[in-house]
């Protein structure tokens, strides 16, 4: 019996310490968030004025989701191209990609959205028109049609918002892709090339599949960030949830209802997405 006690005592001591440790490391913030979420959910669904706010604001949900998704997919394309450019030995592409990344990352997103939507897109349209004029004068009228036909009105503010977000996030994703590609050992490219694959084939079949898998969590995190930054397009009067909430608050003077509901809507989306990202990350790690 005494022997047993001697054995048990340190175990009990350890357990107490680990309990304390467990209490300390417990994600209290998450518990608090769930309580707040339940509370707010309760209020929003039972309190009439919150309910009214939610029903009004949810009209913007489609635009928020559509804008984010489309812009993100385009940003993946920009990012991949620019990321490949950043590691390219071709001086032109390398510098072009570097210029793009540095320019974008040095300017606040809000300013970029104004600039791209209100200066960049109109300039592009004018440029296309000018090309059309030139083609027309050169006597190739049938080719000039699509260039001269386009006007600034054809590009909606919503489309401009998507272009702005995509172009901006492309620069951030480029750095993720670059880091991912550079994390793959040199031997992989050499083995692929030694089998006769071209640089492009080796990139596509060997390097990128591994690189993208490595950066999947980072790409996911930037998607979550983009959900939040999509609220910035409200400055272009695009009717996303932020803009609709502003309209609601402005017309009813129910600021608290409008912005509490808006915040909870963003929080719900980002928390769910973050949990998905974390799950993917954990699964990837356990597969290694």
């Amino acid at each position, binding site marked *: 019996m005494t022997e047993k006690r001697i054995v048990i005592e340190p175990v009990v001591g350890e357990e107490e310490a680990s309990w304390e440790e467990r209490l300390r490391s417990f994600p209290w913030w998450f518990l608090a968030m769930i309580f707040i979420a339940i509370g707010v959910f309760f209020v929003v669904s039972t309190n009439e004025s919150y309910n009214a706010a939610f029903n009004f604001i949810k009209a913007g949900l489609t635009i928020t989701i559509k804008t984010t998704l489309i812009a993100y997919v385009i940003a993946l394309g920009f990012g991949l191209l620019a990321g490949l450019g950043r590691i390219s030995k071709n001086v032109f592409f390398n510098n072009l990609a570097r210029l793009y990344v540095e320019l974008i990352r040095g300017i606040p997103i809000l300013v970029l959205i104004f600039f791209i939507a209100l200066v960049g897109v109109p300039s592009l349209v004018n440029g296309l028109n000018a090309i059309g004029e030139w083609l027309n004068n050169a006597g190739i009228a049938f080719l000039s049609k699509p260039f001269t036909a386009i006007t600034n009105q054809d590009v909606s503010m919503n489309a401009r918002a998507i272009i702005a977000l995509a172009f901006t996030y492309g620069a951030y994703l480029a750095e993720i892709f670059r880091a991912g590609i550079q994390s793959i050992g040199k031997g*992989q490219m*050499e*083995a692929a090339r*030694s*089998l*006769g*694959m*071209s640089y492009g084939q080796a990139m596509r*079949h060997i390097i990128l599949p591994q690189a993208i898998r490595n950066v999947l969590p980072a790409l996911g995190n930037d998607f979550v960030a983009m959900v939040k930054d999509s609220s910035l397009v409200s400055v272009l009067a695009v009717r996303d949830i932020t803009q609709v909430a502003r309209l609601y608050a402005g017309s009813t003077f129910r600021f608290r209802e409008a912005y509490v509901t808006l915040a909870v809507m963003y929080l719900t989306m980002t928390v769910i997405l973050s949990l998905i990202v974390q799950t993917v990350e954990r699964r990837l790690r356990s597969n290694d």
Partner: protein
Amino acid sequence: MTNSDNIIVVQDLFKYFGEVKALDGVSLEVGRGKVVVIVGPSGSGKSTLLRCINHLEKPTQGDIWIDGEKLTHNIKTINAIRAEIGMVFQLFNLFPHLTAIENVTLAQTVVRNRSKEEAEHIAMEKLKRVGIPEKAAVYPSNLSGGQQQRVAIARALAMGPKIMLFDEPTSALDPEMIKEVLDVMLDLASEGMTMVCVTHEMGFARSAADEVIFMDFGKIVEHTTPEGLFNNPQEDRTKLFLSQILQH
């Protein structure tokens, strides 16, 4: 070019890495079907020579012909020539996201434009040849070092190469796995494959090599037969090197 039966001809090759002179005027001819073993101390330029032969390194100066075709900087020709030269690396460099058989089929379909069925058929044939057909569906991370290296050899063989380059293929392996890889190499040698092998496995050099090259400071110091090297080395540096590695 001297002899049309020399499948590799290297003429007066120099390679600088910045200030470092990795190759210092190397000339070499390898006859079709010959097995050449390269030995030499660390940093003597053995890997660099091998990597110049399939243009993984761009020579600073000098010319290389593979089966009569001159290696230029034209990337199309280089890719085509590389497909004819199999290379086996010290650290295997298998593609970790692909199974063993996918490792062996990928370049066949991408570079040789073979159908999936044909590529898989050839891949199984080569995996049998290196003795691990049962590992076809296994990922590299679940293979032992020796098995990984044998898949790497199968991957190179599946392209139907005229030449095989080996860069210390057994030096990253645990001792008990060295033999299984050397056995595959011995088989290849006896079947008449042209092979250039950087290796310090003197048993392999003795039993399989037609010629042995000793390199030091980026130069070929001695180029002789295995007997010549082991029994009658001419240069002091060769003797010193042999005394060092044969002690182990």
